[in-house]
C-alpha cells in the first residue's frame, strides 16, 4: 500500500482536474448541483486514484455512471479520455452482470427462505446461532455500505473495507483542508 501522502497528492490532482472539467462543461450551478458535482468528482477521483485495482473503486465508478445521464456525463468528464473509454466499458459490463446477479440471488433467496426459517426455529435458543446471526446481519450492513459489497465474499469484503477506509480517510483529510482554506479565504 502506498503512503497516504502520495495518495493524497494523487487524489487532489485528480479531483482538481475533474472539477475543472466539470465546471468547464456547465456554468451557474445551484448549490445542490454543486454539492453533487463535488461529491461525485471526489468519489471518482478517489476511485481512480486507487487505479481501479480494487473492487470498490470499480463499483463506485460504475454506480456513479449508472446514476443518471448527468452522472454519466460527469464521470465521463472527470475521467480522462483514454481511461474513460476503459472505465465505461468496464462499468457497463459490470452493471449488467450486477443486475443479473441480483436477480438470480433474489430467486435463490426466495427459494431458500422457507426451509431455512423452519430449520432455524429450534436453534433460536442457542447462543452460537444468535452470535452468528448478529455477525451475519452486520456483515449485510457492511456490504451495503461498501460500494460493490453485495457481490463480495467475506474475505474480500474485509479487504475491501480496509482499503476503502484508508481511501475515505484520505478523501476526508483533503476535503477538510480545502474547506478550511476556502473558509479562511471567504472570511477574509
Amino acid at each position: 500500500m502506498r503512503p497516504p501522502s502520495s495518495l493524497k497528492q494523487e487524489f487532489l490532482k485528480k479531483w482538481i482536474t475533474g472539477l475543472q472539467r466539470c465546471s468547464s462543461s456547465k456554468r451557474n450551478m445551484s448549490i445542490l448541483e454543486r454539492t453533487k458535482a463535488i461529491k461525485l468528482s471526489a468519489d471518482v477521483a478517489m476511485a481512480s486514484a486507487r487505479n481501479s485495482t480494487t473492487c470498490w473503486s470499480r463499483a463506485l465508478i460504475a454506480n456513479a455512471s449508472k446514476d443518471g445521464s448527468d452522472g454519466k456525463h460527469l464521470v465521463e468528464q472527470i475521467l480522462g479520455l483514454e481511461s474513460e473509454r476503459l472505465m465505461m466499458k468496464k462499468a457497463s459490463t459490470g452493471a449488467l452482470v450486477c443486475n443479473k446477479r441480483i436477480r438470480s440471488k433474489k430467486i435463490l433467496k426466495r427459494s431458500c427462505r422457507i426451509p431455512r426459517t423452519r430449520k432455524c426455529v429450534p436453534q433460536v435458543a442457542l447462543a452460537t446461532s444468535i452470535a452468528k446471526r448478529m455477525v451475519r446481519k452486520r456483515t449485510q450492513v457492511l456490504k451495503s455500505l461498501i460500494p460493490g459489497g453485495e457481490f463480495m465474499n467475506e474475505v474480500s469484503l474485509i479487504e475491501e473495507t480496509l482499503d476503502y477506509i484508508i481511501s475515505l480517510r484520505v478523501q476526508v483529510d483533503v476535503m477538510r483542508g480545502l474547506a478550511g482554506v476556502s473558509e479562511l479565504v471567504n472570511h477574509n
Partner: protein
Amino acid sequence: MFPSLHSLGSCTYNGMDLTVLEKQQARLKWLQQQQQQQNYVVQNNAHVELCTSSVPQFQGLLGSSLCGGQLVELKMPEVYLGSDDFHKFVNFSVAGPEFGVSKMDLVMPEAAADYSISRTSGCQMTAFQTAVIKEEGEDVVLEKMESTTGRESFNKRKAKAVADYKCKDKKIKEVEAESEVKTKCSAEVSRNSSKEKSKASEVQKPDYIHVRARRGQATDSHSLAERARREKISKKMKCLQDLVPGCNKITGKAGMLDEIINYVQSLQRQVEFLSTKLAALNPSVEFNVDNLHVKEFPAYVANFPAAAKSPAMANLACLQLNPLQKEAVNCILDATMHPPGTATEGIASASMLIPEQALGSSCVTQLQPFSTWNTDPQCLYNVYNMGFH
C-alpha cells in the same frame, strides 16, 4: 522390564483346552516340565497339520494374568514372519501389570521387555528343538531347523517386533473402553487384520499413522480450507482493528463489525458534509488551476511532504479573492513554498503587507508567529492549519 518378567512367573497357561495331536501333547508336557520356571506354554494347534511337510509350527502363547487374573488373548490368528520357509505362529499375549496401566508413551521399555521375552522364548525354542531331536529324532526338517538357528534368531528379532506390535494391540484392547486413542487403535487393528509382513521399520509406522489419523479428522479439504479462510479473516480483522479508532478494546466479531460500520458511515457522512460545505463556500465549482503548480508539486513535496497540500489549496482559494487579498495570500504561499532561508523575508513582507491591506487584526496575530518558526516547514504548515479554524 523386570517386573513384567517376574509377572510372567505367575502366568497361567491354557494349553489344556486346546485339542492337539497326542505326540505333540506329550512333547508339550515334557516342555512344560522343563520350563515351569519360565512358564511358557507352547502349544501346537491345528495349524500344525497343515504345514507338517516342511516346518513345525509352534504357537507360543505367553499368557500372563492381568490385574484381575484374567487372561487376555489376542485374536490375531497368524503372522507371517518374513519370506522364510519357516513359518511360525507365535501368539504372544504378554500383559504385565504395568501394561494394565497402559501407558502408551512407554513404548521403548515395553519394547525392550518384549525383546527379552522373545529372546527367552527363542532360547526355549532351541532347547525344545534339541529335545525333540533327542527324543524322537524323526525329522530332517528339525535338523534343518537346528542348522538355521542363526536364522531363527533373526526370526526372533522379527518375532520381537511382532510381539511388540501385539503388545500394543492388546494394550489398545485393554484401554479401548476408556481411551481417547481409538483412532490409533482402529488404525492398528486394521493393520493387524491385513496380514502384512512385519518388519522392524514398520513398527515405527503406527506413530506416524497415528499422527495422521489424529489430524485426519480435521484434514479433509473442506475443514482445512475453512480454517485457512478463518485465519485470513481474523488477520484482516486485526488490521481493521488497528485502523478503526476505538476498536481495540472490543472483542468479538459482531462488536468489531459494529464499530467498523459506524466508522465507515461517519466517514461517508463527513464526505457528504464537506462537499456541501465546499459547495456553499465556493460560488462556483470553478477551481482554476492555472497557477496551481501541479507540475512543480512532486519536487517540492519531495522536500516537504507534509506541507504539500497547503500551497495548492491556498492557490486554489486565492482565485476567488480580490487582488489585494490575493497578493497577501500569495506572499504567504511564497513563504511556504520557498526554502526556509528565504521564507523569513516572505513572511516578513506578508506581515508587513497584511496590516496595510487593512485585514483583521486577528489575522495578523495569527501570522506573526511565522517569523519565529520559519526554519521548520512542518510548523509553518501547522500554524497555517491552525489559522483555518
